[in-house]
């Protein structure tokens, strides 16, 4: 019973999953651990088709309304194709300052501030037979101004999500300057 609620909570936290879709997903995926009507030995052989490592569908755009709707579209498409979406997160945006100069001088003509927003949808246990179909469908539905990139999950992608705590790093560097933490036992 506890597992049921945990999985339910995890699915609710992901983007754009309506309640009815949740119920359909639970029953169609047939989570064997929660529905003991299906015996465990059916899964012993393992997957019949090779599965991919966790893949990140990374979409970037300057317009975040379009980006968010598209990321929820990717999520829904994956759910409809019975592909497990592990996580769907947003990376902090990259801010660009673009300056155009007047001809033959260093006087600033115009200045533009652009934000490049990013969303990631992580799919796990993607069968290699379904993968081309999934990516083809998503690519056909790409909206204007959105760049899509599919890559294997990297640990550096995880690190990018965390905003560095400047105060903490400053205190740590101060501590290092003073000679490191005290080594005496308490």
């Amino acid at each position, binding site marked *: 019973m506890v597992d049921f609620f945990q999985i339910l909570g995890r699915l609710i936290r992901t983007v754009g999953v309506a309640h009815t879709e949740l119920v359909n997903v639970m029953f169609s995926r047939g989570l064997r651990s929660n529905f003991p009507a299906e015996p465990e030995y059916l899964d012993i052989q393992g997957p019949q088709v090779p599965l991919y490592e966790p893949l990140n569908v990374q979409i970037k755009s300057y317009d975040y309304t379009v980006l968010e709707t598209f990321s929820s579209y990717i999520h829904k498409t994956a759910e409809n194709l019975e592909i497990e979406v592990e996580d769907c997160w947003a990376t902090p945006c990259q801010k660009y300052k673009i300056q155009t100069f007047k001809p033959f001088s260093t006087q600033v003509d115009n200045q533009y501030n652009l934000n490049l927003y990013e969303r990631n949808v992580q799919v796990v246990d993607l069968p290699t037979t379904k993968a*081309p179909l999934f990516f*083809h469908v998503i690519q056909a539905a790409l909206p*204007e101004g959105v760049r899509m990139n599919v890559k294997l999950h990297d640990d550096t992608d995880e690190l990018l999500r965390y905003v560095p705590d400047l105060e903490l790093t400053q205190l740590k560097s101060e501590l290092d300057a003073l000679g490191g933490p005290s080594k005496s036992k308490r």
Partner: protein
Amino acid sequence: MSSATTSSSSPQKWELLGAICLERTPIIVPPMTEIEQQISEMIEKFDNMRSLKSNHELRHEEDKKLQKMAADGNQDDSNPDAATRQTAQDFEDACNEEFLKFKPAPRTTAEDLSGDQKSTNRKLDKHLLFVVQEKEKKVWKLPESRWREGETLRETAERALREYVKTPDTSVRVLGNAPWGVHTIKYPSSVRQKLGFTGVKVFFFKAQLLSSCTTCSDIEYNWLGREELRNSLEPEYLRSVSKFLIDED
């Protein structure tokens, strides 16, 4: 390679062909339909009504207040460079001016107007399919070649592509190792006995064109949109092919 037995006692033998379905994916987004247009306008209106004031609008109101104060005679001496600061209205006007100067590329190209079916630079918002004409019977079909022992069907399809397209120059992304569709032609019984095969099965592999295409010389080819495909391909063949093509109006 023979398929399973059906009603006949001897196993059926099929000729196997691998064909490549090379598509040039759309470059621009298709224009909105009327309903989509109306809905997007309505959503924009709602968003505008519900939204809070942006920095630009706040600045505009501040400027108006300052102007009013200056007009009434209460000069705000604590802010000497307020007068030289660019007002929000000026900024907006400058932005609009620059926007009008920008001319986006046209949606219809010269090849669209001339109807040149050999170029990939037309129908930028649609998929274009690479079809070739068979030399003997003048039948339009997707590039295909016969399966050989020891190679996978995908390799057959790629070999078919190389016969018609110079592959180092043209980069192509084949989608997956499994075929996307199949077309079966059953031979009449007289032909069956003569050739020894029950019929032909053509397995289609989808591919996407990544660069510009350089075709081999002396082949008749066309890059066709969906409607033109309906007019060129044979009906049965078209039915098998359109099962795995992305729907388009």
